[in-house]
């Protein structure tokens, strides 16, 4: 087994373990920490795939900025451990079957897929930062600008909500 394969399994185990732990933990801070583990493990997998820029952005934006805000909010509100409640009826009758179906469909489509498949033009070369920006500002110009407008609207909405007098 090559070093890459071992690293992949270690990172995948960390990501899965973090994801399971995120749900199993009762305290919000512990859940947030598990989510950070998932993010960092995913960044490691991106690195193994050669997508260095994506890995760095994943850590800077998700693990560094968004999760810091999560942790900050949990600390500020001083949220305590959540209480265990009996599992709801909707979760039993709808959630569990859907989880099983989703797992089966995902496993089936992964087993059918041929390695590696690419979603659109030039995705394979979008590894270096220069080529990525080239793609963003030519082929994918419209979705890119649309996303920035969406984010701008969200920021404005947050400001309006924060400024409102209750």
């Amino acid at each position, binding site marked *: 087994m090559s070093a890459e394969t071992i690293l992949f399994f270690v990172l995948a185990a960390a990501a899965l373990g973090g994801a399971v732990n995120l749900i199993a933990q009762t305290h919000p801070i512990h859940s947030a*920490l598990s989510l950070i583990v998932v993010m960092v493990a995913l960044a490691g997998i991106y690195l193994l795939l050669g997508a260095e*820029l994506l890995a760095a952005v994943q850590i800077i934006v998700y*693990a*560094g900025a968004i999760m*810091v805000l999560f942790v900050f909010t949990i*600390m500020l509100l*001083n949220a305590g451990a959540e209480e265990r409640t009996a599992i709801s009826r909707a979760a039993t009758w709808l959630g569990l079957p859907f989880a099983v179906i989703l797992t089966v469909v995902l496993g089936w489509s992964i087993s059918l897929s041929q390695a590696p498949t690419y979603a659109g033009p030039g995705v394979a070369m979008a590894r270096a930062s220069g080529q990525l920006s080239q793609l963003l500002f030519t082929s994918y110009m419209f979705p890119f600008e649309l996303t920035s407008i969406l984010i701008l609207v969200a920021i404005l909405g947050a400001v309006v909500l924060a400024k409102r007098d209750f």
Partner: protein
Amino acid sequence: MGDFLAANALLVIAIVKVVVVVFVLLTAVAYITWFERKVVAHMQGRWGPERVGPHGLLQPLADGAKFLFKEDPTPAGIDRFVYFLAPFLALSLALSTIAVIPLGPGQIELFGHRTWFSVAELNISLLVVFAITALSVYGVALAGWASNSKYPLLGGLRSSAQMLSYELSLTMSVVGIVLLTNTFSLRDIVEAQRGGVGRWFVIPQILGFVCFFISALAETNRVPFDLPEAETELVAGFHTEYASFKFAMFFMAEYAAMVTVSFMVAVLFFGGYFSPFPGTPAWHWTIYLPAAGGVIGGVLLLLHGLRYHTPLGRIVLPVAGLALTGVGVLCALAGVVEYIQGPFWLAAKVATVLFVYVWVRGTLPRFRYDQLMNFGWKFLLPLSLANLVITSLIVALMRPAQ
């Protein structure tokens, strides 16, 4: 042994580099505490550490021994896992950034393999530095939260808010340099500054430099931005409940972060490992400056040590002076003088930035919390954005027409 070396040469080289760099960095961190206490003391008309060893030079050792043997009480009602995780997180993240910083030009020969003069050579090293900086807030924030105590919690909250706010202008202030050089690689950024003071990025990017330096002060929780540990308000801030070596780990993390930021300032704005003199033949004599500095410093130390007022000092200081003179002479030898240039100039620049750091601490009072937030969001961030807009305008106008 020879077979093992041949088969795993890359691994062995990596381990050797890591061990050397971590050893040098930790020693430097220990002596920066001494340096800071001495400089601040002299600025305030005091002596500073003076009792342990000549000129207090053994003070870091004494401090280390004290931290190791102190009682380490664990407060009641803490979150045990996070409480123990926080200092490890803080120190390991602070130490790991140094890995991607280029310490010298070109490649060196080690065990018959050519290897870069840095621990790890990446083409996105600048982003890696920012990624690790972005994570380093967790050490402080989690320490404050896990201590189950009001002062640390306030310190942790303050530091999260402060580091989030100043990280924006820290990152924005460097985008100008990325625009000028078209690269995320720290080595390529240094290479773009080849050729003396005139090519340093501090001149075209003076706005970016001001933003970067101020934000870096805030990111490392240094005066005047040391609100997370404001001792007049918060006892000791986020590390109030930490004692013994866990406290020492936070302390080392802070100084290691300081060293890293000094390296970043030197690499991004002051030409990194290049000499400040242009590379023309008229300036060729400057490659002997490191040797001259070593010899002159060594002789002065020798003369001073012979007249020192304690017997130990009369032995230690002259020996150190002789050793420094020897190193200086060694630096003038034909095979060594080329290799020593990069590390020497980088170390000189880093030492200068560290001195400015300490100087700022000895001079400025602490900000109030609202002043800190106003300054970060309403002055520093717009300034770095303005720098970004101006730089991109100039880059776009100067670009050759296609």
